[in-house]
């Protein structure tokens, strides 16, 4: 697939890295030659210097032969215009990033689909989604959480600490087999290695355990596995930008106590207007005084979303010091994410690109295998496959299948019913499978379901 990416910033680079690993032909356009040089030294992609809204530049990038155009500069107008030009040049799929989707959604007149843009992504909104999902999970052990199949299934990564009942015994002699049979443990992250668990696998202290299942089952499991499973009683958000405000709005709507800290007085006033019950503090989240005014107590979750990576990390450290139970930092630079998770100073770093890449990967996969989700820390991908009636697997029990290495069947959606993939379950035609595959195994799954 030939893919043109406009914008070699953090988003464009993360996307290019991801897609070039999968052997797509990638051309990246940016007006900054320095950025392009950096990208070219790291990735096997073609770089074109120039403005993405200039037809000559687009031609140079081979726009007429392109299958997918993704415009992810930090200027909405450039992204939208580039996609519109791509539409004129006959590119089949166009994806544009905008700061906020809402203005384009409120009135059908301004629906960007009318300009031929197939997908509009807003990193901030996708990111707000993700943080919101994590905050809804009980307890502090959640590493990440992703909704799937229209919220009928949930994938959660949890940290196993000393008190966890999960650790130090093989999975087959698990104390609560009834509960375990309703969820599926798809992978363990030990340090930087992924382990695909079997019955003999022991979970160690510090492992991240990724499990999948129906939301109610997963929640029940989390409540059981987490010694401290109370919900957060208060959420402090620093940074009243689009992301912070959007998050505050959503939490406000479900009646969670929210405190929003914003430096700029005008913006703070605007935020106060937007919230019904939440408190808005005007001040710098980096100052001890503001933090003490925010009244952080045990059970408080702390979110840093100022739009500046370094500031966010610092704010989270201060928040932790002031007594927050759980801290989340929004981080844009892809290089930071693995470092932060290994530092274990923060509970969670949320990179705003992953959710966007999820949305885009959806278009890249073939007809039969769709991308369901990508997780932050766990390499590989969750794939969504529909079982054709004449497929080899149809009518067989899961334990009889020859599943390739590095591939785990996670959940099965039959009609409206979500089931964890346990060995005795017999697959039937038209089941929808969610399959976890390591990066090298994604293509194996694709060829297994190729038609």
């Amino acid at each position, binding site marked *: 697939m030939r893919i043109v990416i406009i914008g070699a910033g953090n988003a464009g680079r993360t996307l290019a890295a991801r897609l070039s690993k999968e052997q797509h*032909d*990638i051309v990246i356009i940016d007006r900054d*030659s320095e950025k392009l040089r950096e990208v070219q*030294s790291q990735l*096997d992609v*073609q770089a074109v210097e120039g403005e993405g809204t200039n037809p000559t530049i687009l031609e140079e990038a081979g726009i007429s032969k392109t299958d997918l155009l993704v415009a992810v500069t930090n200027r909405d107008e450039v992204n939208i215009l580039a996609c519109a030009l791509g539409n004129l040049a006959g590119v089949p799929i166009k994806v544009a990033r905008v700061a906020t989707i809402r203005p384009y959604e409120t009135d059908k007149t301004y629906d960007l689909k009318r300009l031929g843009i197939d997908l509009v992504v807003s990193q901030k909104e996708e990111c707000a989604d993700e943080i919101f999902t994590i905050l809804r999970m009980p307890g502090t052990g959640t590493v990440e959480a992703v909704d799937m199949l229209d919220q009928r299934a949930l994938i959660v990564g949890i940290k196993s600490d000393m008190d966890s009942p999960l650790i130090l015994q093989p999975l087959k002699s698990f104390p609560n087999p009834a509960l375990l049979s309703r969820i599926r443990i798809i992978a363990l992250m030990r340090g930087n290695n992924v382990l695909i668990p079997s019955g003999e696998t022991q979970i160690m202290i510090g492992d991240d355990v990724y499990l999948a299942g129906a939301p109610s089952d997963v929640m029940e499991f989390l409540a059981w596995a987490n010694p401290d499973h109370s919900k957060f009683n208060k959420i402090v958000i620093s940074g009243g930008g689009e992301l912070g405000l959007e998050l505050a709005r959503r939490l406000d709507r479900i009646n969670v106590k929210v405190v929003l800290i914003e430096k700029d007085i005008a913006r703070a006033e605007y935020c106060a207007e937007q919230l019904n019950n939440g408190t808005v503090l005007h001040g710098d989240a980096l100052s001890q005084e503001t933090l003490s005014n925010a009244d952080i107590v045990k059970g408080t979750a702390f979110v840093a979303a100022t739009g500046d990576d370094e500031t966010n990390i610092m704010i989270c450290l201060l928040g932790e010091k002031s007594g927050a139970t759980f801290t989340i930092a929004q981080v844009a630079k892809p290089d930071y994410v693995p470092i932060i998770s290994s530092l274990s100073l923060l509970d969670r770093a949320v990179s705003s690109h992953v959710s966007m890449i999820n949305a885009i990967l959806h278009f890249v996969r073939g007809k039969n295998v769709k991308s369901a989700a990508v997780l932050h820390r766990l390499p590989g991908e969750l794939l969504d496959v529909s079982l054709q009636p004449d497929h080899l697997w149809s009518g067989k029990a899961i334990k009889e299948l020859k599943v390739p290495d590095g591939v785990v069947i996670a959940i099965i959606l039959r009609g409206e019913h979500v089931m964890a993939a346990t060995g005795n379950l017999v697959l039937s035609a038209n089941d929808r499978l969610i399959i976890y595959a390591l990066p090298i195994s994604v293509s194996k799954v694709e060829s297994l379901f190729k038609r």
Partner: protein
Amino acid sequence: MNFKPVLHLISFLLMLIAIIMGITSLVSYLMDDPATAWRGMIWSGVITGLIAIVLWASTRTSMELSRREGIGIVVFGWIMAIAFGALPFIICQAVDNPFDAIFESSSGFTTTGASVLADLENHSKAILFWRACTHFLGGMGILVLVVAIIPYLGVGGMQIYRAEVTGPSKDRLTPRIASTAKFLWGVYLLLNMVLIVLLRVGGMDWFDSICHAFSTISTGGFSTRTASIAAFDSIYIETMIIIFMFLSGISFALHFKALRGEPLCYFNDSEVRCYSGLWLILSILIAVDLIRHDTYDITGAIRHSLFYVTSLITTTGFGTVDYDAWPASAKFLIFLLFILGGCAGSTSGGLKQIRISLMLKKMSRVIKSVLTPQAVYTVKHSGQIVHQDVIFSVALYFFVFMATAGLGSIIMSFYCDDIATGISAAFSAVGNIGPGFSTVGPAENYASVPNGGKAVLSFLMLIGRLEFYTVYVVFLANFWRK
């Protein structure tokens, strides 16, 4: 540096060489060579192949390469190719000294074309064909071929491509390096095939046409005859070889564009303009000089001047007459040609025309700005502004080229009796030309150079082929760190 993936990839390279050795022995058998020749070739292939298999099996690993491993593969891959490429010369008893074998192999893979073999007609077909094959493999870059074949190498694949494809700016024909490498090899094969047919039509037998086509398109210079192209004494063959040498001195990316339906791309390219301009001017100058000294009549002067200017500017090194007997002024122009080289992205060596063109342009801008310091001048190449860093690196490249060749000359002067031999041998090796002056002139060969000198020249050829930095980086302690 992580050795496992490096050795793993090198095992593919050795396998490829073993296969070509097998083909050579088949050719040799069919051409009624003595048994020692084709058996020796088979043994070389078997040894290389077995080592390749052992290496392959013992280093199976993930093939994703970083930049460091990419450089490692290029340098060690070339050293291994040269080392194993030397086997047939020893096993087939073409030479009796390992230095000669390494020299011949290095000269072959780097497409230099300098030889230690005298009386080529007395050598087996196996050896002659193997020499042509080393040119063929080295011309477009043996590792570029590996990049084209092995699907995914990550950043390291790019590093390999950058290190092996010549010139300061590497045109990408396609977004992915592997497919670019495929296209370049495709154009390369096509040119080879066309020339084979054209030479056959001109009266060469199949064996000679294949060997000479391999030598011409790779701008190597090995011939199957001691007298080189003069042995055929045919205006047609000389013309064909001139045309294809000239084409091989142009970027293969441009050929690809032209074949894809933009034949005008040659005229819009500043580098091609500089290349053809220098080619024409030097041909005329030398021809005039030869006429002025009554060395040849008008047609003879034009014929020989054209042939040598093309042969040397493209760094092929084919010969017809002995230019060592020419007047001093013509000889100096010949020596100038040792440095120039063809276009970036071609199979030729030397400085490369793009660097010359950029330096000339920058020079004129600097001179102008002395008069009007406030004026803003930019250097353009094919209509695009060239960044200051590029100009700087081009100027530095010139220095590195001259420093390396200069140091080489100093070392060579210890091994040679006269200045002309030492200097010309060193410059000829660094520029991947082939012949030099005096005792290593076009009518002579390198057999008289002492063993130490052969080793130095072999190394200079490798440095010149990989454009210096890639080889020099291996000498940094930092490179070896994991």
